[in-house]
Each structure stands twice: as structure tokens, then as C-alpha cells.
């Protein structure tokens, strides 16, 4: 039987916050091939095909930043702070530096991060891509990001995080503050590809105003030392919507403690959390917390986990309703693949192994809105490859 252990504490002293700078790269085709491969794996296309802009940060240096669409501002947070005095009204307003030791490190030893703002009414057809990359061994990458979707704007950000194949260990601390104004829509797709001894502590808070929409997709299919995140979203304006989809795969030795909290503060707000986890030797703690503060809200949480061979999956769905007139539900299931499903497929001619892999592929096939076709194919391929390790 697999033992449930507490997540191992990260000792900040084990990681260095100071490293050498990397040169700015104007032409992305000049990026080293092993880095480029890693970028592609997390959805960041170095050819920039079908992307409205690109931001790449390697260790502490912004090595590329380019937006090719009018009405979209993309720059390092350092630059943005110099440029916009008003940014202080957003910066560290949603996430307090005192939240924990990671936020405080991100505040005191910030290594940049991105600032992305879409001007009012601007609808960006193609996704923007950002990549946060750790290349230096034992480096603690402390990031602070701010995204502002102004009134009536629309934007999709593909955010890939990865580490160089050459590092033994690393720490990624990412504080993100997202502001979705009235009637705006932000789709945020985060794809992670860390290493076996990489520790990851994102801290994200989003505020959504009236009629605003947040769609957040999180995909982690590759091994990671430990990952712990619990982003919080406040639906502050009437009719605001938040949807979270996550796809988690925990291989041997990986520890994923992942969930999200959505606070429904206004009438007519809706929230949905869908999570799918597969563990084969690792630990997944899948959390979800829906908080209904006013009448006329709707919220649903669906959490499903498969344990293949060995591993641990703990689903913690929470619902809190503070007034009458809230409509909240959850559905959680942890187990093995249903034999009836396997045999159903076998009756159609598949052998047992093909049947299982078809079911697993389906299980992980959460409908992720707005993914560029190339990226969808890439993810399907990664899922197929991961499956080989699972079996």
C-alpha cells in the first residue's frame, strides 16, 4: 500500500537566487536546440506560428519579448513598473508578500516576470505565449507576473514552464496577479514540464469583474519533485464566470498538490472545476474549494482520479454555501479503470492493452478550449508517450 506523506518542505537556503544574465535573442531560430525542444513541449513555438506575441525568460533574464498585435502590451514586469506609475495599484494588491515564505521571496528577490495588458475592446485572435525557463542548476526562479484584461477585451495566454534537461535541481516560485475587467475574457493555459528534483510553488490570485470570464487550463504530464498550488479566483461582478480544467499525471516520486478555490461574490456568477488525475507511483492531492457568498450562484466541481499500478490519489472537494439560494455540487471518484469499459472495447476487437490505453487517453481528454491545433496534437502525443511508461 502506498503511504500518504506530507509534502516535503522546501529549504530556500538550498537554492541560489543570484545567477549570471543571458543575452537577449532577437531571432528565436538561434535558440539552442535542446532548449527549443523543451519550449515546444510546453506549447511555446519558437517559430511563433499562430502566436500574437512571445515572452521568454531564462533564469532571471528576459531573453525575448515581442508582441505583434496592436492593443497588446507585453513587457517585463520591471519595465512595466518603470513605465506605469499606476501599476502600483495592481502590484502585490491581490497576493500579499506575507502569504508565505515563497511569496516573500518573490517580493524580496524578484527575477522579473511578465506584464501583459490588453487594451479595452481588443480581441486577440491568436494566443500569446510565455515561457519561464530554468537553465541554472539549484536556481530559485522568483517570478512576479501581472495580467490585465481591460474592459471587453479577449486574450489567450499559453504559459509554458520548463527546466533545462541539464539541471539536477531547481525551485520555481511564481506569483501571478490577474485582473479581468468588465466583460473581458482571459483564457490561460499553463503547461508544465519540470524535472524530477524541481520544486514548484505558484501563487496566483485572479479578480473577475462583471460579465468577465476566466478559463484556466493546467496540464502537468511530466515528472516533478513537488508541486503545490492553490490559485484563488474572486468572481466579484455580476455574471462573472470561472472554469478550471486540470490534467495531472504523477509518475514515481512526483508529488502534486493541486487545486483551486473560487469565491463567488456576486449574483449570477458561475464556477466549474474539472480535474483529472492519473497516478502511477506518485502522489496527487486534488483539491477544489467553491465558496458561495450570495444567492443565485451556481458552482460545480468534478474530480476524477485513476490509480494505475501503484500510487496515491486523494480528492478533497469542498463546498461552502453562506446563504440560501446557492446551487453547488461536486462529484469525486477515485479508483481503477472500470472492467466493463475495458471489456466493452474488447468486444469491439481491441486487445486489453489497447482498450486500457484508449480509456486513459479519453480520461485525460478534457476538452480544452482554444488550443492551437499543433499544440493539441503535441499534447496527444505526450499523453501517448506517457502512457507507455504507465503500462
Amino acid at each position, binding site marked *: 500500500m502506498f503511504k500518504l506523506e506530507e509534502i516535503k518542505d522546501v529549504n530556500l537556503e538550498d537554492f541560489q537566487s543570484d545567477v549570471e544574465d543571458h543575452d537577449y535573442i532577437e531571432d528565436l531560430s538561434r535558440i539552442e536546440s535542446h532548449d527549443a525542444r523543451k519550449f515546444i513541449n510546453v506549447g511555446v513555438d519558437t517559430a511563433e506560428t499562430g502566436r500574437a506575441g512571445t515572452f521568454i525568460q531564462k533564469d532571471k533574464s528576459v531573453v525575448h519579448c515581442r508582441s505583434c498585435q496592436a492593443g497588446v502590451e507585453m513587457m517585463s514586469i520591471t519595465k512595466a513598473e518603470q513605465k506605469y506609475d499606476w501599476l502600483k495599484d495592481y502590484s502585490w494588491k491581490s497576493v500579499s508578500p506575507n502569504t508565505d515564505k515563497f511569496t516573500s521571496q518573490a517580493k524580496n528577490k524578484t527575477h522579473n516576470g511578465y506584464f501583459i495588458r490588453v487594451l479595452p475592446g481588443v480581441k486577440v485572435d491568436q494566443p500569446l505565449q510565455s515561457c519561464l525557463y530554468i537553465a541554472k542548476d539549484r536556481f530559485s526562479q522568483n517570478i512576479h507576473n501581472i495580467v490585465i484584461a481591460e474592459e471587453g477585451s479577449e486574450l489567450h495566454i499559453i504559459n509554458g514552464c520548463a527546466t533545462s534537461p541539464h539541471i539536477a535541481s531547481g525551485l520555481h516560485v511564481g506569483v501571478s496577479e490577474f485582473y479581468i475587467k468588465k466583460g473581458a475574457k482571459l483564457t490561460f493555459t499553463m503547461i508544465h514540464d519540470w524535472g524530477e528534483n524541481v520544486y514548484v510553488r505558484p501563487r496566483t490570485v485572479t479578480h473577475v469583474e462583471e460579465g468577465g470570464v476566466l478559463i484556466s487550463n493546467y496540464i502537468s504530464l511530466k515528472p516533478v519533485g513537488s508541486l503545490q498550488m492553490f490559485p484563488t479566483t474572486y468572481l466579484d461582478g455580476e455574471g462573472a464566470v470561472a472554469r478550471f480544467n486540470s490534467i495531472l499525471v504523477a509518475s514515481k516520486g512526483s508529488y502534486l498538490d493541486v487545486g483551486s478555490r473560487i469565491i463567488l461574490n456576486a449574483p449570477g456568477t458561475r464556477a466549474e472545476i474539472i480535474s483529472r488525475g492519473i497516478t502511477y507511483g506518485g502522489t496527487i492531492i486534488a483539491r477544489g474549494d467553491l465558496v458561495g457568498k450570495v444567492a443565485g450562484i451556481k458552482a460545480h466541481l468534478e474530480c*476524477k482520479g485513476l490509480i494505475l499500478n501503484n500510487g496515491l490519489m486523494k480528492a478533497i472537494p469542498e463546498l461552502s454555501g453562506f446563504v440560501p439560494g446557492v446551487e453547488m455540487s461536486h462529484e469525486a471518484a477515485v479508483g481503477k479503470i*472500470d472492467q466493463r*469499459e475495458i471489456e*466493452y*472495447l*474488447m*468486444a*469491439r*476487437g481491441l486487445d486489453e492493452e489497447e482498450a486500457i490505453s484508449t480509456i486513459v487517453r*479519453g480520461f485525460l481528454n478534457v476538452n480544452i478550449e482554444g488550443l492551437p491545433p499543433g499544440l493539441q496534437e503535441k499534447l496527444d502525443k505526450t499523453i501517448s508517450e506517457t502512457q507507455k511508461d504507465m503500462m
Partner: protein
Amino acid sequence: MEIRNGETHILFGPNGSGKTSLMMTIMGFSGYKITHGKITFKGEDITYKPLNERARMGVGVLIQRPPTIRGLKTRTMVNICARNRELNVDELAEQLRCTEFLDRDINHHFSGGEIKRSELMQLTAQQPDLVLLDEPESGVDLENIALVGDAINTLLHRGTKFPKGKRHRDMGLNGQKSALVITHTGHILDYITTDKGQVLYDGVMCCSKNAGEILRWIREYGYQECIRCSN
């Protein structure tokens, strides 16, 4: 029980008599143990053959309550059934009124009728030589029952819907298929061509006659008469 090449047999029997168990055992599902007897298909003993090998040999089943497989689109399932056979899935779906749920997860929130149509679409793609149908008409409304009947006939190469220019006597020349059909109400008999009926009672085959005639007797006297008859 023997089902000859090209024959369609109807299996009657009261609830709990073992009709579905028999069918699941022929297909090879787990949870059924053969204590004696054997199953022969195309001259080969398949009693202990795995489920998927039976499927590959040409046994196909319409399951009454098939499981939902999340993330697996009905379209993909049909392609799985077709294996390497060429197939226009959209056209087939159109014929069987399955277009609407072709891109939905297989069996997810399907109505009773949708399940039957989807299962028949899969079987049509799969083209088995022995078709096992467990209550193909249950949950199907009157409007769709003729469609289901036609689909079964076409699948078994016995329908009246055949390509233009062909004559009635040409039907089945390319090899007929055999079928075993479970029915409770007998409604499906109004729509499909049958050869023989059998009654299963308490795990024992107790009658083998014309299907329509058996149905009339059951309607008239209930299974009591079958019991009396078999004793």
C-alpha cells in the same frame, strides 16, 4: 443450441431465466463461468477464447446498458469497430440518426433509443458474422423502432433496403449473417426477418419452434405454458 449460417434466432424467456447470461457467455465477458458444455464458432472451439479474439473472429454484441467512456467520442468508437475497413462514418450516422451524438462521449447521457442506434452503428461498422442483440427494441420509441428494425435487417443482409438494381433473390448472396436476438415484448418481430424461436427457462432450453408462433403462445398463456410444456 445451434444457429446455422444465415439464421436469425429469437431467444425468449422470463426475467432472470439466463438469456443475457447466455449471450454474455457466448461473447466471452468476464463474470460468467462455463461449468460444462462448449461454444463452437466457425468450426472452432471458442469456449475459452478471450473476448477480443471472439470479436476478431466475427462475434459482435449489442449490449443493453453499455458503459460510458468519458473522453472517447462516438465517432472514434465507430472507427475502432471498423478497424481497417473503409467506412464513411458521417454517412452511416446519418442513416441511423446518430449524427447528433457522433461527437459526444460514447453513451454519455444517451437516451435509450440513442444507445440502440449507437450500438447498431458500431455493429454495422464492425460487420460481425454472428450478431448478438440483447433487447434491441427496449427504450426505443415507436418512431424509431422501424429504423432499428431496418438497421438490423440491413446488417444481417435480410432487409428490403438493398442497393438499386438488385433483386430480392440476390439478397444474401454475399453471405448472410447469423443472429441471436433477445426480446421481451416481441415488438421487434414485426420488423425483422426471423427463422426460429427458442425459449430459455431456468437455464434450460425448453422449446424450439417458429418465433412468431412461440410469441403468440406466450402472449396467450404466458411462460406458464412453457414451463408446463417442458416438464
